[in-house]
């Protein structure tokens, strides 16, 4: 965990210096604080969910459905779940972290993130009125196989 802190700290420091030289450090810190304030309640609730998933007896449910040995059906289920996950990264990442800690395989976990990022129906709701159904269908359609594909590779190589 300290290594992660170090990496993020270095990135933040570089950006901070760069922003300061362009006179935008104050604005950046303010935007960051605003983002944090707006998402703090959601984060707190999301972590309560992670905590419960961790201490509860899930009866191997997560492992059976999307565990390392769940195969193609696990990848498919993760892809569907990813499309249906609601909200932004502040909500979705803690939920996926809870499933990963609770026994989800690396393949299904990668599928969950990728499917949510590319195929989430909640963003399609923004896409349809602004880009039209043709573009939405094209973009969504060419992306459809990607989550399961990368999940299968992740499970095969790192599983």
């Amino acid at each position, binding site marked *: *965990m300290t*290594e992660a*802190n170090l*990496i*993020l700290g270095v*990135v*933040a420091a570089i*950006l*901070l210096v*760069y922003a300061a030289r362009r006179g*935008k*450090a104050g604005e*950046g*810190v303010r*935007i*960051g604080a605003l*983002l944090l304030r707006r998402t703090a309640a*959601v*984060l707190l*609730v*999301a*972590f*309560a*969910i*992670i*905590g*419960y998933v*961790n*201490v*509860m007896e899930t009866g191997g449910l997560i492992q059976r459905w999307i565990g390392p040995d769940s195969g193609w059906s696990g990848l498919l289920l993760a892809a569907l779940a990813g499309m249906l996950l609601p*909200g*932004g*990264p502040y*909500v979705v*990442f*803690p939920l*996926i*972290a809870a499933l*990963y800690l609770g026994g989800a395989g690396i393949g299904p*976990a*990668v599928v969950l*993130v*990728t499917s949510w*990022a*590319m195929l989430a129906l909640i*963003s399609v709701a*923004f*896409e349809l009125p*602004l*880009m*039209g*159904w*043709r573009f939405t269908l*094209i*973009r969504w359609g*060419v*992306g459809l196989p*990607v989550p399961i594909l*990368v999940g299968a590779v*992740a499970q095969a190589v790192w599983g």
Partner: protein
Amino acid sequence: MGDRTLWALAAVALLLAGVAWAQGGVSTAVAGLVEGGRLLWLVALQLLLAFLIAGLAQALVDEAAIARWLGRGTGWRGLFLASLGGALVPGGPYVYYPLAASLLASGASVGVLVAFVTAKNLWAFSRLPLEFALLGRELTLIRFVLTLVFPPLLGALAELLFGGLVERIRAEVPQ
């Protein structure tokens, strides 16, 4: 992030608290909250840094400049520029779809737009620190490396298969 998300999550948390209570009584119901607090404490500093990075990135990125150089290149160069632009644009779908729509109106191709949106979804530089903090280094790195090729690749594929539809797509979108 609407209030509805918060209420939906709170309902899930309450449901889980109820199940935990049924499984192990008050002590399990409390243990879940304690465990959540412990995990939050573990990543608290990383979360703060992730929010700082996201804020600084948002202040530094000039969306108008991105929109200007997005349309410049053609072929693979254009797809890479579009991907890079998508990766740099901060904010949610209510930010990047209006931007994509204005790019479409000003003459961008189907491939460029698919690359732009897909890179926003998969490369998403300002989201990466948060992913790193919440999902850990291993999962984030594997996910990022495996999806790296797709923004320009899907852009090229979409252009190859559906590039000819661009005028009809443009006509469909309110200017």
